């Protein structure tokens, strides 16, 4: 049982990383990026491509991060900024279109075969905690990164000038303009940050397991469930939501491999029914 919970928490670490970017974009801009999962997969394939072009695999993994920053900034500034407004439809349709384009572009370039990022054995290393209990080193690493990322985001939002701008723009974009903020730029910076998180998640997913062009939507749903279950407006909530999802799925997998993901969905829907505001919503 303890082992189950532990595996669940470790999985939750990865799901938190999936979810933080989504949480950030929705928090600042009320934008739902339907292509979120596809960008995660794109990042993984990006790292694979860089490695295939001759770059040292570990360097490739890190190199995707600045690329992601630039990509995120441009996508928001030149495509998604046009879709912002009271109507959620344009952003949904445009990101949905992006999702289709990314999936099929990856399919054309790489074929549908699942691939993984070369980890040099890291993904098999394990650490014996007790006589009967051992955990993978990579999952622990992922959990550490997830905690760091959550801490980092929280810190940026609460203690930095940019974070203050994020919160202001999220509260009242019109008055933020009155203060002298260029909201177009602020939105783009938020997405740039989100894309870096997405890239981190993508690389770790590729290291931990395989990635295939069609995997995106499933990752989007996991990220989404973590955000909603955790409660909107709070990064620690997203962490909690990720943990809950991870544990639930592990329990489901243990019962039957076919029911793991299903169990996660059902717990999500049930929580939505009884506590729609999530576990730790930020009260205003």
């Amino acid at each position: 049982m303890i082992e189950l919970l532990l595996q669940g928490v470790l999985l939750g670490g990865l799901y938190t990383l999936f979810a933080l970017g989504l949480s950030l974009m929705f928090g600042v801009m009320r934008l739902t990026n339907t292509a979120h999962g596809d960008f995660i997969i794109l990042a993984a394939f990006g790292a694979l491509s860089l490695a295939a072009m001759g770059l040292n695999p570990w360097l490739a993994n890190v190199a995707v991060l600045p690329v992601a920053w630039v990509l995120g900034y441009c996508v928001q500034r030149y495509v998604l900024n046009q879709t912002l407004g009271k109507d959620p439809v344009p952003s949904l349709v445009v990101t949905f279109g992006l999702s289709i384009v990314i999936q099929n572009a990856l399919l054309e370039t790489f074929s549908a075969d699942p691939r993984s990022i070369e980890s040099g054995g890291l993904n098999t290393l394990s650490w014996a905690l007790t006589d009967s209990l051992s955990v993978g080193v990579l999952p622990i690493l992922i959990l550490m990164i997830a905690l760091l990322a959550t801490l980092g985001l929280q810190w940026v939002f609460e203690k930095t000038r940019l974070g203050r701008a994020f919160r202001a723009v999220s509260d009242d974009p019109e008055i933020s303009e009155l203060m002298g903020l260029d909201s177009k730029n602020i939105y783009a910076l938020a997405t740039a940050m989100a894309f870096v998180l997405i890239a981190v998640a993508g690389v770790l997913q590729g290291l931990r397991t395989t990635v295939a062009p069609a995997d995106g939507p499933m990752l989007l749903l996991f990220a989404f469930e973590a955000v909603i279950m955790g409660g909107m407006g709070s990064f620690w909530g997203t962490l909690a939501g990720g943990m809950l999802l991870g544990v639930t799925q592990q329990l489901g997998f243990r019962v039957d491999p076919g029911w793991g993901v299903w169990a996660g969905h059902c717990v999500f829907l049930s929580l939505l029914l009884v506590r729609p505001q999530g576990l730790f919503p930020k009260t205003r």
Partner: protein
Amino acid sequence: MFLAGSNIVLHTRDLKAFYGDAQALFGIDFEIGKGQAIAIIGANGAGKSTFLKALAGLVKVQTAAVNWKGQDIGGKLPSEIVRLGLALVPEGRRLFPSLSVQENLMMGSESQRKGPWNLERLFKLFPILQEKRYQPSTSLSGGQQQMVAIGRALMSNPELLLCDELSLGLAPLVIREIYNALPEITAEGMGVVLVEQDVSLAQQMTQRLYCLQEGRVSLQGVSSLLSREQISQAYFGQ
């Protein structure tokens, strides 16, 4: 008219403003000199807030309709206009609920204009804000929130302060406290445009007064010289 031409810092010429297809302002001519205090009065829906919003850039107008220190600024972004030295204290305060009092004030300095106003000076002007500086802005009373809104605008060190209904929803004592701070605010030559519901207050605090009625200027003159009847007629129209 009562000023030498070179003293005018802001003037509007035939300013028209629309909300979608509905026209709210039908050609406003307005001017203010350096360091002056001017009031704008009028019934609800007369277009007073719309006028201030147009000056601040929140409502789009033609380029030549607004002229600030010799430059046509109509249609510029609000973020550009605040950098030029006009700051708006919006109707209803519009503080940022997710930010603390101090953070709200700091937002005002995002335009990075140099000047005498900073946190320290604001806290001297409104001491209660220093006491509550780390609290969420939503936990303050109406009057205190109004102080934050004014302070936030002052942090951008404007040359012209636009105040939209400072007294809205506040008790008379609190209104007095806020308006008592006005002389110190304008002591260094800052101009102020006051949109006010309270006509006598408007007359007391300013040198000149404009009255708007259904999107048009129905009366203007020296505040202390306008009679009750003149104002009444202009306010309600025929």
